[in-house]
């Protein structure tokens, strides 16, 4: 699936919910389902520090496609992290670098990206793109 297709699928998933509770319960569920990151990747270099919660991000290439593994110590951020991984992982560095990320806004979760200091999500997206640029340059 393309980045656009994954985003559109997430958006249609969220269209099923008509109140904040079921929406957030779904995010919390995704947070719970995200596999715990292997401790060997939970290194100081892989930490993206938010003011309140932490995000870990690890990236590697497989068959010309960039793979992301991520985790967070807060469950809602974990759910959002899992969505970002779903959207951007297993794509070519070129596509990740130029991807238009519109799904959070469409779902009405854009404020979480805007809270740059508190949860580190915006920095995570920046870091994912930085990996994409770096792997593009290597190739």
């Amino acid at each position, binding site marked *: 699936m393309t980045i656009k297709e994954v985003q559109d699928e997430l958006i249609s998933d969220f269209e099923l919910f008509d109140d904040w509770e079921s929406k*957030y319960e779904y995010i*919390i569920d995704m947070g719970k389902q995200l596999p715990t990151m292997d401790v060997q990747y939970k290194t100081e270099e892989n930490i993206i520090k938010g*003011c309140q919660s932490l995000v870990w991000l690890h990236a590697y290439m497989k068959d010309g496609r960039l793979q992301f593994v991520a985790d967070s110590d*807060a469950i809602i*951020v974990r759910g959002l992290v899992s969505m970002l991984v779903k959207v951007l992982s297993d794509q070519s560095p070129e596509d990740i670098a130029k991807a238009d990320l519109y799904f959070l806004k469409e779902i009405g979760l854009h404020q*979480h990206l805007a809270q740059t200091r*508190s949860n580190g999500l915006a920095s995570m997206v920046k870091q994912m793109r930085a990996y994409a640029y770096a792997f593009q340059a290597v190739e």
Partner: protein
Amino acid sequence: MLKTLDITAVRNDFPILNEVVNGKPLVYLDNAATTQKPKQVLDALAGYYGHYNANIHRGIHHLAEKATAAFEDSRKAMQQFVNASSSDEIIFTYGTTDSINLVAQTFGRSFLGKGDEIIISTLEHHSNIVPWQMLCEEKGCILKVIPVNEEGELDMAAYQQMLSENTKLVSVVHVSNALGTINPIKQIIDQAHTVGAKVLIDGAQACSHLEIDVQALDCDFYAFSMHKIYGPTGIGALYGKRSLLEAMPPYRGGGEMIKEVTFEKTTYNELPYKFEAGTPNIADAVASKFALDYVNQLGKEHIAAYENELLAYATQAMADIPGLRIVGQAKQKVSVLSFVMDGIHHQDIGVLLDQQGIAIRTGHHCTQPLMQRFGLSGTSRASFAVYNTIEEIDALISGLHKVKRMLG
């Protein structure tokens, strides 16, 4: 017998309390971060800009005179608010942080040297830690820290032990922003004075709850911010004893703070102006008087009595939530409730309460060393002001039950 405040009438003075957040009526419980402003303050700001905006102390025209008079009236209001002996001892700053930095940069750089000791406490906000670390780095002073017990109270025996002839400054918080602890500052000040040390009190969290009398306390400096006392942001004050302020050099150069300028030599203005370089924050200073008048009119003892009722009610109600633990159980507290919930990250609590229109603060509250002391990365904090109600606390409690159900 205390009169009972008419809280409905009080709430009507605060237009922002009618806001709707995420489809729910706003429940604002983040008052330790900043309080909301009554319409008396909002009107004062609009009144200043709409009717007598002018630069102060210089012009001779009508508007300048009126603005200058209002600005200086606010200084007098602040003087009375903390019971300073003269309005010359009230320096306008942009807030508590600025006031503390002023003392560090002038008193500290002039009178402290290598090996001199500065005592702070584990309860301090970063704004009462970092300026002293910067000074210690520059001057070779030594920073000592009073520990706290499990309840979040200062270890006064340890403090007594720390004091020596090397102690030059004690800088402690009056009321902890993270835990609500009221510190025994009179005792701290008296003991510091026995070894000849000066004392700065960070009053940011105290002024909206407690009576402040700098003469009775005999503190050397007292710092506070208006935005935590129902006033505007970007304005606050440093109280300092006249003899100290006279001895301290100015640290910002510019207009207003000078007596005479030539290229060879500049002489400085008298107190308080020598510390107020440049055009000050006139509008917010002017509106500050209206905030203090508002507090005085309600009466601090009535405000405190009512807030204590809210605190007692909330403390009791939270004890009934399984897995919730209150952090900071000092015997003397203002209306601040810091808590953690088993297995739930504080940020998740904040996000899910926000969805229900409830504003609290989550995180380390700019007190990372204090959080480390309790082995926490952060807490959730609800803090109450005079316009909060029992119904709002009920909303918080049911909100927390919902958080627990969703994350459990």
